[in-house]
């Protein structure tokens, strides 16, 4: 990582240019308040956690065997403090143990919004939105929580969406609204080009003039677009007007973000060089993961974005963990029966994913903000999946791991055992409240009727 000397730099990514240019009037003062960051984390095919009403749970011995695979104290209920666990955590989540004070593990969460669809595609696209997918379409029926939070607190980029190890194109877990997916980047170089390459020196007059010119052009175009939308709307029915409204909102949002600037804080560093990586090569997956974690950390540290999503694997099209000796894709491994002798490779793969998340937590925790708290403390990471048990495609009791505590708004250090089938929508309400963006409903209204999860809010 090289220090950026951010004082004389700003973001051009929004302008879609890569020339070395910069504006003199783009230097806003550092925001008076340290912003909260949100990252939606997600991995494909779940853990090995079955719903508590599953027939297998009728057998206490079998239940214990299963609980051992995921829960820190090898048991799931009642709720308990993570600090009270004196044994090593199960291999699948062992790397997270070093962050136990800043973690919250939720048991009992379900994603009922996806219930009618096949869980792999639909579980992915609805997890962060809690809104039923559009019938037969590859889109959530509403915005995702990361997008909701990004609209409350605008940084120059609306959100950074990255994926590691998916083998299908056009993955969508974040949505700006119904039929408005925010597609994820799988190539780190694309992320770099979009987010960081435009962060550049601005000391020469020519470069400043170039930026000013592009900004003028973009502003006048957006302004003209907005006027024309108004003119168009007089020919439209109420329903068409609503469709046009999404366009108008996007324009207003783009105008506001045009003036957002990067942080001047000294913790803002950008990754120096990107190795040449093939995002679809299994053996390169660990390297891609490390670079993506760097990029995310830096984007947060530089306040280029305050929200994002990141995922490992996707549905039925995921990486093969060749570096762990694996021969099968994640999805295939997740379907192995409990007694399959190859389970150790699957365990190692889940452990590897946990290690990636733990590394991200390390990095965020090492960046100290102006108030002496770490970047992790000012963030909330919400980690979920499409299913609880990949083998049986169960959509009840999908474990959710929270990290960071959102600036002390969310309690940490505990395993919370909620009633089976607690809709993830209630967690979205909780997080909205913790970010000062409270809403009465998020996603489907019928899954919100019991309100936020009060136990989690401090």
């Amino acid at each position: 990582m090289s220090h950026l000397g951010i004082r004389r730099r700003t973001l051009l990514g929004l302008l879609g240019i890569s020339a070395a240019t910069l504006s003199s009037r783009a230097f806003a003062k550092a925001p008076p308040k340290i912003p909260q960051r949100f990252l939606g984390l997600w991995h494909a095919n779940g853990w090995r956690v079955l719903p508590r009403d599953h027939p297998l749970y009728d057998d206490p011995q079998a239940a214990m065997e299963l609980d051992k695979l995921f829960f820190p104290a090898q048991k799931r209920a009642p709720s308990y403090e993570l600090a009270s666990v004196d044994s090593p955590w199960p291999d699948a989540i062992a790397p997270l143990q070093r962050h136990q004070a800043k973690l919250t593990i939720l048991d009992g969460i379900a994603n009922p919004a996806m219930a009618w669809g096949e869980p792999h595609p639909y579980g992915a696209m609805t997890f962060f939105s809690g809104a039923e997918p559009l019938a037969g379409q590859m889109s959530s029926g509403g915005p995702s929580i990361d997008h909701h939070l990004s609209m409350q607190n605008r940084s120059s980029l609306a959100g950074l969406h990255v994926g590691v190890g998916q083998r299908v194109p056009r993955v969508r877990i974040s949505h700006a609204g119904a039929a408005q997916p925010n597609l994820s980047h799988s190539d780190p170089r694309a992320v770099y080009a979009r987010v960081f390459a435009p962060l550049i020196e601005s000391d020469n007059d020519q470069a400043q003039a170039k930026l000013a010119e592009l900004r003028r052009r973009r502003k006048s175009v957006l302004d003209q677009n907005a006027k024309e939308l108004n003119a168009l709307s007089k020919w439209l029915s109420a329903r068409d007007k609503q469709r046009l409204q999404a366009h108008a909102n996007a324009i207003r949002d783009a105008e506001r973000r045009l003036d957002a600037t990067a942080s001047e804080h000294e913790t803002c560093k950008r990754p120096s060089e990107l190795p040449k990586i093939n995002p679809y090569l299994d053996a390169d997956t660990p390297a891609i993961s490390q670079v993506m974690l760097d990029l995310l950390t830096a984007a947060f540290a530089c306040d280029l974005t305050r929200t994002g999503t990141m995922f490992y694997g996707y549905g039925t099209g995921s990486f093969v963990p060749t570096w762990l000796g694996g021969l099968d894709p994640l999805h295939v491994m997740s379907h192995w029966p409990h007694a399959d002798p190859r389970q150790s490779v699957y365990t190692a793969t889940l452990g590897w994913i946990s290690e990636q998340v733990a590394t991200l937590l390390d990095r965020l925790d090492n960046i100290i903000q102006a108030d002496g708290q770490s970047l992790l403390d000012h963030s909330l990471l919400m980690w979920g999946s499409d299913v609880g048990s990949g083998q049986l495609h169960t959509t009840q009791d999908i474990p959710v791991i929270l990290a960071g505590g959102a600036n002390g708004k969310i309690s940490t250090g505990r395993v919370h055992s909620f009633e089976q089938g607690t809709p993830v929508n209630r967690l979205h309400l909780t997080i909205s409240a913790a970010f000062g963006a409270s809403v009465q409903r998020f996603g489907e209204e019928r899954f919100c009727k019991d309100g936020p999860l009060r136990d989690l809010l401090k």
Partner: protein
Amino acid sequence: MRKRHSHPITLGWLCLSALSLVGCLRPVAPQQAQGTSGGSSTASGSSSATDKSSSTTSTPEPGESSGNTNEQPKDTGTNSQESKKEVTPRNELRRLTPTQLHNALHGVFSKLDRTKIDAALSIPVAYSNDAFANDARYQVISPESLAKIQDSAQAIGDAVASTTNLRALSGCSEASSETECAKALIVSIGGKLFRRPVSEPELASYLAIYRALLAKDSKATALAGLIQALVASPHFHYLPPRAASSQHAYLVAARLSLFLWNDLPDQALTQAAQNRSLLDSKVLLAQAQRMLASPKATRMIRDFYIEMLRLGGMRVRFHPHADRSQLLDSFGAHIARIYKQDTLEALWTLPVNLEPESLAEHFPGQYPGLLAHPMFSWIHAKPTYSDPIARGAVIREQVFCNALRAPPPDVQMLLPPPRPDATTRERFEIHRKDPSCAACHSLIDPLGFGLEAYDHLGQYREQENNKPIDDRGALVATDVNGPFQGVAQLGQKLVQSVDVQGCLAEQWLSYALGRPLRGIDETLLDELRQKLSAKEGALTNLLVAIATSSAMTYEEPKL
């Protein structure tokens, strides 16, 4: 619930694939839906499946959420239909598809290298897997697509300004002033992109943009900014449902060219709009016939069948042997041959002629009809085995226009793993044995089995895993029920089916309107169905009939 299996942990393999493999998407016909619902619901979970099926006739409108908050209720069914006082207009606000944008910009900036435009344009394709790309419901602008439009417009502005100048581009005379040239440019390029004359206030706004930039920046920058503004304009990207009465002919011309060409009106069509002769049915007919004779129409017809048979978009993937673009070209050539013969018979039974030799060598064997084209069997397959379920479901949904029901939420989608000693067909026997599967899959699987002579790469085969291929199929719940063997006999049945004719008319009309059909379209649809019963010229007649119908000419009442 969920207790069909006694020892779930020991069951090795589930039905893991995407929706297509498990089939049963939406209710077939009302009477079919009853049967499937009863057969497949095992316990408490069935009520939500029923909810879903009742809402398929009024699919939720993605555009009804602004995307910024969660406050807007989503239209999920009958309740909101009743509460809606406003009469739904016949035409809806449509956005140009990526294909239409490419075609339009290639035409307007014809002097610019096509690759430059293609590089600059990065508009995301439609998000829907199953609807036509021009379906208004799925064309909502997201912040991401707005950013793409803005970036693309800027890049095109830069590309234009770097290769030419205002004077050359506007074609204004030596004696003209800078302002006059700018005006000429706005009128000519704006007129093409907006598919109507640029109004006085619009001319003034764009001129103001140009002047403001010129006051601070170079001439090239001002030109780039002006082009950028025109290309990003909502008037270019949207086709509104109505216009001022005096401009209605322009709207008809735009609908016609976007339908028949996926492109902007050309000079002759614009002329007919300008002098309003296009509103005369004879002129309209002549224009439609002229346009259908153009290669642009051939390209559009190919694009229609790619979308109708769900061969494009996200489904396109790597073919290990054949050149993908050759396959696509061969598909286009086959469609063109069908339209030359212009009969329903040709549509479903004309043997595929795979050319050139470098493509044909990968595909030995028989390909007797459109559904035997390797594009179809290759795209509708799993990575390592054929997918009779997906094939059957696509034919059911897209060729017969049956809506299939999604599997109920509590269904256990268990399939035996691929076995080296069994055929794909044998693996799916479970669908027949398990009554909860059979209810839906009896509609899908026997149809898809008829295509089993084509493997996951679209190649003809006589054996799978050293066992002979069984491509006997059967049609049930159609107007041409009964057994058939292979694609050749399936094609014969499709030719005889009145349902299939009606479906084709429905698909084309929906494509022309850019939306699913509704009750108000019934009368027109009935007229169109008649066209297809003709022995000769049926396929083109249908297009001419749509192009000269109210779908193109309708003038919405004033708001």
